[in-house]
């Protein structure tokens, strides 16, 4: 069953009301999942280049490892299922927003960068958890893909708690 209202809620959250009637196929869900993980790896890459804060660097390293592990799991599954991830309005919107965020992060330095990075990580993980729970899982028809998405939620929750802990220390 497609959850058009959930997609609308997600896209309003990500400020793209023009795609409010979008629904996703399994190849499109896979594309969104990979994009969401890849984006956080790229944010972590910026942090590892720009920050000198140990808490930020440790968090960024964990994001790199964990999100790469999720992508590896997803890649193995889509190969097994013979599914090719398909670019779509949601993954395009994610990538466009991420480009703006990368520009914002790259324009900052020092403690201003650290704060911007970890604030974004808190907001990003909240948005991704919401999207996985309320968009990607309900939209997915294949049970193995649904199980994979369900399985990554504890990691996303742990990342959010970790990010919030670092955020308190940075402030």
């Amino acid at each position, binding site marked *: 069953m497609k959850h058009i209202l959930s997609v609308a809620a997600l896209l309003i959250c990500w400020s793209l009301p023009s795609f409010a009637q979008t629904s996703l196929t399994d190849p499109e869900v896979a594309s969104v999942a990979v994009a969401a993980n890849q984006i956080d790896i790229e944010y972590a890459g910026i942090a590892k280049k720009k920050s000198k804060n140990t808490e930020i660097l440790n968090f960024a390293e*964990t994001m790199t490892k964990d999100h790469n592990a999720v992508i590896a*799991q997803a890649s193995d599954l889509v190969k097994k299922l013979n599914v090719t991830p398909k670019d779509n309005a949601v993954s395009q919107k994610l990538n466009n927003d991420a480009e703006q965020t990368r520009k914002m992060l790259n324009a900052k330095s020092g403690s201003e960068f650290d704060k911007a990075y970890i604030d974004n990580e808190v907001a990003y993980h909240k948005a991704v958890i919401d999207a996985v729970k309320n968009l990607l899982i309900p939209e997915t028809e294949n049970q193995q893909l649904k199980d994979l998405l369900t399985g990554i939620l504890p990691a996303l929750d*742990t990342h959010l708690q970790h990010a919030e802990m670092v955020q308190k220390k940075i402030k």
Partner: protein
Amino acid sequence: MIVIKSMQFQPAELIIHKGDTVTWINNDFTDHDITEVKSKAWHSSILKPGKKYSRVMYIATDYYCSIHVVMKGKLKVN
């Protein structure tokens, strides 16, 4: 045996006898470790998925994963 799964130590709290060997197994999709909280007196190496770590325990200990610092566990000695 303490299983690491879904970003948790399961069980998160375990009662052991003095001198018991405690084994952790990483059944999660990503790396973890086991690190003593109070003074970092001991820690495992990085446990890849599927790997185990064992340690003989004589005292009650709080431990955590230093990669995912919000993951915590507790050993109590009976």
